[in-house]
């Protein structure tokens, strides 16, 4: 694998479950050393993509490359270089968390004992409880510790923090930051926008089995519209406001959205009416994703 070849690359990936097309021509690319956010509504196909990348499911069409190899046929070689955290961790009822960590670590070719101890400490995990006695968040921690305690090139994380409390969420973000500093590539599927905002260099958004948007957060923000709230001394005529979107006029109060590169024009348009108060808010992450997740085709940007 050459230095600039993507760590993960899929082209036109298709996965059918019977007649249902869970992945419908998925193109995903994750570069070396980046944390790649993987977002999308429930049932969009995130976990399915990850399972294909792990060689747990066999794709029906398209190609997938992982760390320069084929995820289906080169399983053993590839899995020596990656670690995985599922979104819903099932532990062995008769085994303690510590035993599960050691088992998974040993199967992966050994753990960094010092880092294992440190992670157990930082995540405040009691390793002597048995499978069913762990709470949801603590089960999740077992899998996170097992994955992060081994030295791997690639981490594949499927909603790793579902169920973690905010304190532990912070610890997770710190720990993942350190992994990134070591040069680890991360594919991070998540529904927690702030987590993605903090950690991800780039992100891909999947909907109905297809990637609908990919890029840096800044570039996605650039394609979204800024919200403008203005109070004016004179009431504008609606027809004059053609350059604005989603206009809501309530007396002399105006709410509207403008394209990211149209803020100047909007100011020029509104100033003649005598601005009394003005707020210009960059698009919130929530609104950005809500639009991307929605089903209509004319969401943000071009498809």
């Amino acid at each position, binding site marked *: 694998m050459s230095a600039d070849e993507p760590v993960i690359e899929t082209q036109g990936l298709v996965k059918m479950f019977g007649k249902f097309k869970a992945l419908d021509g998925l193109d995903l690319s994750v570069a070396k050393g980046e944390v790649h956010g993987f977002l999308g509504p429930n049932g969009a196909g995130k*976990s*399915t993509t990850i*399972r294909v990348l*792990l*060689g*747990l*499911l*066999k794709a029906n069409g398209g190609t997938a490359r992982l760390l320069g190899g084929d995820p289906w046929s080169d*399983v*053993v*070689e590839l*899995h*020596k270089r*990656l*670690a*995985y955290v*599922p979104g*819903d*961790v*099932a*532990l*062995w*009822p*008769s*085994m*303690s*968390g*510590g*035993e*599960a*960590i*050691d*088992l*998974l670590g*040993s*199967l*992966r*070719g050994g753990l960094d004992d010092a880092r294992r101890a440190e992670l157990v400490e930082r995540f405040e995990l009691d*390793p*002597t*409880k*048995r499978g*069913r*006695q762990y709470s949801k968040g603590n089960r999740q921690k077992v*899998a996170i510790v097992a994955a992060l305690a081994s030295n791997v090139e690639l981490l*594949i994380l499927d909603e790793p923090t579902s169920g973690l409390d905010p304190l532990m969420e912070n610890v997770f973000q710190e720990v993942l930051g350190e992994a990134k500093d070591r040069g680890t590539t991360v594919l991070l599927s998540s529904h927690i926008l702030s987590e993605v905002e903090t950690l991800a260099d780039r992100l891909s958004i999947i909907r109905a089995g297809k990637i609908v948007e990919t890029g840096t957060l800044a570039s996605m923000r650039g394609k979204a519209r800024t919200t403008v709230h203005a109070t004016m001394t004179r009431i504008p005529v609606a027809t004059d406001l053609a350059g604005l979107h989603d206009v809501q006029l309530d007396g002399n109060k105006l709410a509207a959205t403008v394209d990211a590169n149209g803020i100047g024009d909007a100011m020029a348009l509104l100033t003649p009416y005598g601005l009394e108060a003005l707020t210009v808010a960059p698009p919130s992450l929530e609104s950005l994703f809500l639009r991307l997740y929605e089903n209509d085709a004319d969401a943000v940007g071009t498809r």
Partner: protein
Amino acid sequence: MSAPVVGAPLLLRTSIKHEARSFAPWIAIATVLSASSVLVYPWVFPTEADREGLATLVGSNPALGLIFGPAFDVSTADGFNAWRTLALGGLLTALGAIFVVTKATRGQEDSGQAELLASGVLGRSSRLLTAVAMGLIMSIIVGIVAAVVTLLCGGGTEATLLLCATYTATGWMGTGFAAVTSQLGAEARASSSMAVGVMGVLFILRGFTYSVEAADWALWINPLAWMTETKPAVENNWWPLWLAVALTLVLLVVAFALQARRDFGQGAIAPAPGPARGRARTPLALALKLNRGTLIVWATGFAVLGVVFGYFTTAITDLLAGDSGIGQVLASGAQSPADVFGAFVATVVNLIGIFASIACVQIILRVRKEEMDDRVEPLIATPTSRARYYASNVVVAMGAAVAFLVIAGVIVAGFASSADIGVTYGQAFGQALATIPAVWTVIAVAVAVVGARPKVSIAAWAGVLLSFGLTLLGPTFGLDDWVLAISPFYHVPAVATSTVEWAGLGVVFLVGAALVTVGFAGFRRRDLATT
């Protein structure tokens, strides 16, 4: 309606709607067992002479009695049916009830389903009441369906009704045991294993006490022997059924008392904290660890089975002395005593082999359960190849088969060689070793099913079912040799007889190897179950 059982009727209705399908196999097996007996009997044994021949055959192989209990009278279709199905039909109904009850109680708690239910408007005891009702209802349906179909096939009225009532009664007792063990085990599996274990012990003891003609009290302390004492088609005693009803009631009272004190999702036996560091670091170590409890219990079981069956071989000469069946065979000179006893030891060891295959098929089916519970996924996501993961479990199952047969074989051989029946220690122990390839092949059926066609994982039992049916029932039905030869145990040579033929065993081994190959190829190629 009193508070603790609020919502039970509604829950029962929905549960039955969803679970009715799981009743079907148990209803079907008991019905087929019973109806086929009366249907086939007049064809296979049309004349008086044939029927006497059957009595001789049954009498001359007392090992059969260990499973089927005593043959009071096999000269009528109903008597034959009672001998052939009373023990098995009841046991199977009880097993069905145990699985239904355990699934509706602890199974639901383990999967989290029960939490959703318990948070609804539902009294504390409603879920247990529903589970118990399902077990009781299923047993009743088994009895009714089996009775109706058997009557239509020409069964005698009273004998058939009584026989099928014993199925239901045994199912009720199984429900009672399962209701109690569901309150004890740490999880669903432990709970059902306990109940199945109790049933298994009672079953073997019944066969043993009848076969060695033990004292009466030994019969009356065994609830399964109560069922045999109804003697359908011979004496038609109905009153022992009341004992079963009474026992069921007592067990249910105990179960409800225990469940009132039990915490949700936990058994009375709480697990201690585990070690902070783990020692199981390979798939093989994991497979051993996960199956350790079951392996120990089964190994103990096989030691006990070795003693029971071994003791039985020492009793055989006495048993046969007064028995006309074997006397005739010996007197006619058709077979030498060595051949008869050699064949007898082979039958006993075959039985042990079939039990061993039940235990080992369970180990293979556990792989599917682990997969469905999402516990295989994280393992396969490590550099462990699918083949290595699967192989670890297959090795444990195959190794367990060897261990079980060696344990039972050592003990049986000890008894047999001291029994003065012309069988040496080496021959009897060799018999146990010679049975291993047959057991492996039965396991291989499960390996193929779980590996290649996991959706029909129930088919993993096909090998056990065929072996059991053909080895034990085939000869009494006068089936052709080529049909009997489908059972791998048919090819196990009787080591202590004069005609020892090893070639068949080689074929059995090759078939097993082919099935294992199919299983591994399938496991490597298919999608892992996802939820």
